[in-house]
């Protein structure tokens, strides 16, 4: 009996998760397959044949994947630089990079509305170059994208710095001393060794932006994403049954994308396991 003792440590967390997450989610998912007591897929058929909903799904998926990609591209060089800094400088730069996380999403989104909206900095600058000011970026998927990248970039940077710190300078130097160019060193050494951090960061960013509500609600205007659509169904239309269907589709899609990411990561992953040689 004794060797099971250590599992007791899991119990509190497990209880909370079961009570407040697993049971409600199971309930949500189950409810989507039943209408008036009988099994049905009508809810799903209704959505998956609706071009309006499919468009929202596509926009959400595209926006969150783009957010993830842009975050990776922006975070990689920044994280590499930060990981090579001295401890004190590293602390300062990390604090600066998580700064966006410290402000409320509402405040942050309102700031972007000022910047991106009509008469905002972007519009005025564009006007200087003779651009058509009647089209503003605000209330477009681009605005959502900008807001989400701003929100999630810190996550990418933090997770990447975490793994990059553990890539020894000597490994990079070894590659160079063996004749590797800067690009070979990047593709064959740095990138593969960063995959664990890229994976963690990207999953966080993707799931975060796929399910984000405040930022798209404020910056997207009438442009719906899946979470705002879900909110409309549940609260405005008071159709919890259909909202549950949307929620289930979100959960399934998240898992599918994470699965694909994992598979992709496996292609370039660290097979040797431990980062340190």
């Amino acid at each position, binding site marked *: 009996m004794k060797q099971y003792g250590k599992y007791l440590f899991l119990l509190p967390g497990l209880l909370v998760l079961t009570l407040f997450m697993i049971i409600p989610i199971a309930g949500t998912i189950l409810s989507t397959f039943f209408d008036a007591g009988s099994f049905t897929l009508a809810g799903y058929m209704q959505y998956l044949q609706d071009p309006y909903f499919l468009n929202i799904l596509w926009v959400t998926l595209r926006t969150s994947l783009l957010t993830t990609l842009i975050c990776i591209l922006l975070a990689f060089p920044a994280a590499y630089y930060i990981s090579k800094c001295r401890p004190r400088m590293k602390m300062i730069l990390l604090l600066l990079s998580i700064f966006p996380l410290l402000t409320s999403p509402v405040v942050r989104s309102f700031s972007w509305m000022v910047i991106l909206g009509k008469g905002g900095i972007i519009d005025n600058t564009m006007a200087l170059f003779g651009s058509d000011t009647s089209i503003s970026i605000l209330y477009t998927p681009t605005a959502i994208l900008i807001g989400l990248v701003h929100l999630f970039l810190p996550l990418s940077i933090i997770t990447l710095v975490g793994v990059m710190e553990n890539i020894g300078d*000597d490994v990079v*130097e070894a590659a160079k*001393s*063996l004749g590797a160019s800067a690009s070979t060193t990047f593709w064959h050494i740095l990138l593969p060794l960063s995959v664990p951090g890229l994976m963690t960061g990207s999953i966080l960013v993707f799931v975060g932006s796929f399910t984000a509500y405040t930022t798209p609600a404020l910056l997207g205007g009438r442009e719906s994403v899946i979470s705002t659509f879900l909110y409309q169904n549940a609260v405005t239309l008071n159709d919890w049954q259909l909202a549950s269907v949307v929620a289930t589709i979100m959960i399934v899609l998240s898992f599918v994308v994470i699965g694909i990411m994992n598979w992709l990561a496996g292609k370039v992953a660290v097979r040797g396991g431990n*980062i340190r040689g």
Partner: protein
Amino acid sequence: MSHVSLQNVAVAYQKTNILENFNLDIPEGELVSLLGPSGCGKTTTLRLVAGFLQSHQGSIQVGGKDYTTVPVNKRNFGFVFQNYALFPHMSIFDNIAFGLRQRKVSKKDTYTKVMEMLELVGLQHFENRFPKELSGGQKQRVAIARALVINPDLLLFDEPLSNLDANLRVSMRSEIRRIQQESGIAAIYVSHDQEECFSISDRVAIMNKGVIEQLDHPAAIYHRPRTSFVASFIGFKNFLRFDRRSENGQKPIFYKGDSTFAVSYEKDTGSMTGVIRPDDIRIKPAGPPVTENELSGTIITAIFLGRSYQYEVKTEHGSFTANQEMTIPFQSGDSVVLDMPPHKWVLVEESEVPSYAG
């Protein structure tokens, strides 16, 4: 003509000069080690030759070719790191093959060469393993194989054995020596371990504060240190600055207070500082009056070293350290006479003696 030649190179880090007007020449096929306390510039020198650092003056030549401004990846020098620096995500085969792939060696030749290397370092059948599955010694063998397989013009070792345990260090260093001699590639070997450097090198450079104080064959350094820094670094614990000297026929006599010392030497440098190892001082019980090369004193401490006892002896010219094998040791407080024979003394140039020197 020497194979490796550093002329007047200089490296500064944050406005502090680490190396200044530094020169070093290494003949074809020779293994020269750089030995010195931490911060003496030995690793800086090695990294400069490797190309990880740039000299802002002078030149670096290897095999008659100027390498001063050639980037690291175009140098073709094999570098062996202290922490092995294997690529953790690659198999042992891919680690060793990495350099060959950069050189666009055909698949077939790569396979042959990697297998040859694995045999040379005694790691046959390890090609499909990953670095984390290997012990420290095995990892360092892979690192050596990886550096050797590119047929480098020069081998550079940065304290390659310092992460290994004592027994393994001894066997690995003879292995490194064997491999280096078989390949006939000139090598620079950095270490702070005196015994390691002496056993592995054709010549040893003792460095202090960015300067080579002595570059010589290991035995020559061991027996004839040129400066007081070198002497203290290689274990001469006793220093005596003489007051004056006089020539008594063939044998020069040195004076310190009332004591006289005959000192034999090969070359007269006019130096007035004598050094002697603890092992070379004989301790006798006090009794008959002291004669030439003798000094009376009192035992302060006696430390059991296993084979011998180490005594701290207080004399009128300061304290001396002497080691002696004996069954019944002296006790602290005993009056003794130190016998320091002429041929055990070495005259050295005064240079800065590190603070830890006793």
